[in-house]
């Protein structure tokens, strides 16, 4: 197992390098000159050629491409993502509190998603084909087809405005979590409980289940074995889900005015604040790769066959 972990970690290094390179390249693909973007963002009244040339020099844009990249990677490793074009604050001081807020939202939602998906998935698999299973699946189909911001707006309108029970926006107390977490969970439980259900169903007709029954094992014990095996799949799915949720709270954060990464990123996109966008993409991509690695490791811990595949 130790050598597997070492190999898997080594394998993610080139991927991380490629990700950082592509993220860096992305900014250079922009149709606009970054120097011009900075000047526009700072609302300089008259943008002259001279001024652009001076800003280019200041930003180090005249250096060779690879040198710029190397400098940037080294700085990023020290958590120095540069300064915002708009406010001049360091990007890290903008991103780190926002990241924490998003992380809180994501973790609370993920826990609810995992618990709900496993419960619903197992219950539906054990009741395959009857009314309960069919109605749960029907409702989930409808819920996953709903745009989350639509559901969010409806809930704000009903619970916050008409009933005046919960805050409409912001992040003041634990009550602020209720609506955004509910909306995020609803969209994802509908997807993930189906995965749990189908992996459970796949196990129901395996030979070991038939054998267990033939030996007269109580049904409760058989269910326990099935659960153990089918939850392996669930664990790896959830490891993949967490970074996906982390990246797609964008819309919800904007609806609920949650002071997180999603709001920051949309604000930066609209004001073309490249360093912030760059840092946002890099941080989430790295999180994505790390969670993928983690999910592979958990899978390998459960299933020794997978360890040989590298």
């Amino acid at each position, binding site marked *: 197992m130790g050598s597997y972990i070492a190999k898997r970690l080594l394998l993610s290094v080139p*991927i991380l390098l*490629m*990700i950082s390179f*592509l*993220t860096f390249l*992305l*900014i250079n*693909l*922009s*149709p606009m000159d970054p120097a011009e973007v900075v000047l526009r963002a700072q609302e300089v009244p008259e943008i002259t050629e001279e001024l652009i040339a001076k800003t280019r020099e200041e930003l180090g844009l005249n250096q060779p491409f690879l040198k710029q990249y190397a400098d940037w990677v080294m700085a990023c490793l020290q958590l120095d993502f540069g300064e915002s074009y708009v406010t001049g604050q360091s990007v890290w001081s903008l991103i780190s509190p926002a990241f924490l807020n998003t992380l809180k939202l994501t973790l609370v939602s993920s826990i609810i998603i995992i618990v709900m998906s496993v419960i619903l998935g197992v219950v539906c698999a054990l009741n395959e084909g009857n009314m309960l299973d069919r109605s749960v699946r029907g409702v989930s*189909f*409808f819920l*996953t*087809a*709903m*745009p*989350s*911001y*639509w559901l969010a*707006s*409806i809930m*704000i*309108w009903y619970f916050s*405005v008409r009933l005046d029970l919960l805050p409409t926006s912001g992040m003041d107390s634990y009550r602020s979590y209720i609506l955004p977490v509910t909306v995020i969970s609803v*969209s*994802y439980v509908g*997807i*993930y409980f189906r*995965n749990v259900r*189908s992996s459970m169903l796949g196990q129901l007709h395996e030979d070991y289940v038939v054998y267990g029954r033939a030996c007269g094992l109580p049904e409760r014990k058989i269910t326990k074995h099935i659960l153990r095996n089918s939850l392996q799949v669930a664990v790896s*799915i959830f490891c*993949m889900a967490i*970074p*996906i949720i*982390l*990246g*797609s709270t*964008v*819309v919800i954060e*904007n*609806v609920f005015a949650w002071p997180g990464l999603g709001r920051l*990123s*949309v604000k*930066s*996109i*609209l004001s*073309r604040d*490249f360093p912030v*966008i760059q840092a*946002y*993409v890099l941080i*989430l*991509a790295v999180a*994505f*790769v790390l969670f*993928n690695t983690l999910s592979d490791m958990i899978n390998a811990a459960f299933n020794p066959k997978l360890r040989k595949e590298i």
Partner: protein
Amino acid sequence: MRALKNLSRDKLASLSLFIIAAIVILGLFAPVFAPHDPNHVDMKLRYAGSSWAYWFGNDHLGRCILSRLIYGIRPSILWVLAALLASVGVGAAVGFLAGYFRGKTDAILMRICDIMLSFPGYVMTLAVVGILGAGLENILIAFVAMKWAWFARVIRTSVQQYAEMDYVKFSKAAGISNRRIILKHIVPVTFSDIAVIASGSMCSMILQISGLSFLGLGIKAPHAEWGMMLNEAREVMFSHPELMLAPGLAIVIAVSAFNFLADGLQVALDPKRMNSGKQPRVTEVEKPNVEYA
């Protein structure tokens, strides 16, 4: 043809197919079906309820909601469909090359796919929009750029399974050109897998594009788009919540239709039925790769 027959037996899937066809036709011939000019502002009709002239009422600028819904099909559904076809096309080209020729071609192409897939898709869409600027065409570019790798992966797996079949080997031995084998003998059988994943990912793409428009990163006003209509409705949500209804339901109906169609297709095109007696195949189609927003 047999697939079509199977599909017609599934009532829900046929209904979905019918709804999708209706939406596409409405969108293509929007000027014919829309009762009014979608951008015509009439301040006298602000927030008017439904009437015979304006079935779904009027929005905050007195524009006809029904006409805006119909014109909104173009960016919300038709352009998404085009982006989907483009990414499936690129993905299929790469997938066929990798799956059929194997060896070095396969290794190189799949490494590229791995790198593309190691980016979180939704974040990258945002990033591309962030760099190129807000706008529908930039979102579509981002979609194609991010989605092809996933299609390539799935199609490659599917192609690999068929490329090893005896009839393909026989065709090779008979001296038929690779191009002809791929077009005549592999494309038709892998088509089912492609159809299933394409209709499945259409759902998440519709939701994503409407979400981006909702955030103001999509199509520019005054053009109608379902997500943007919801965004406009949100600003007056507390006084006129009914404006949220029509565009939201339109999205729900369209996405559900694609969802049910994907499900129906999976059953109708099930290869287990096509060559019965064989072990069911495990394809990557079943793996979750859904990023709803």
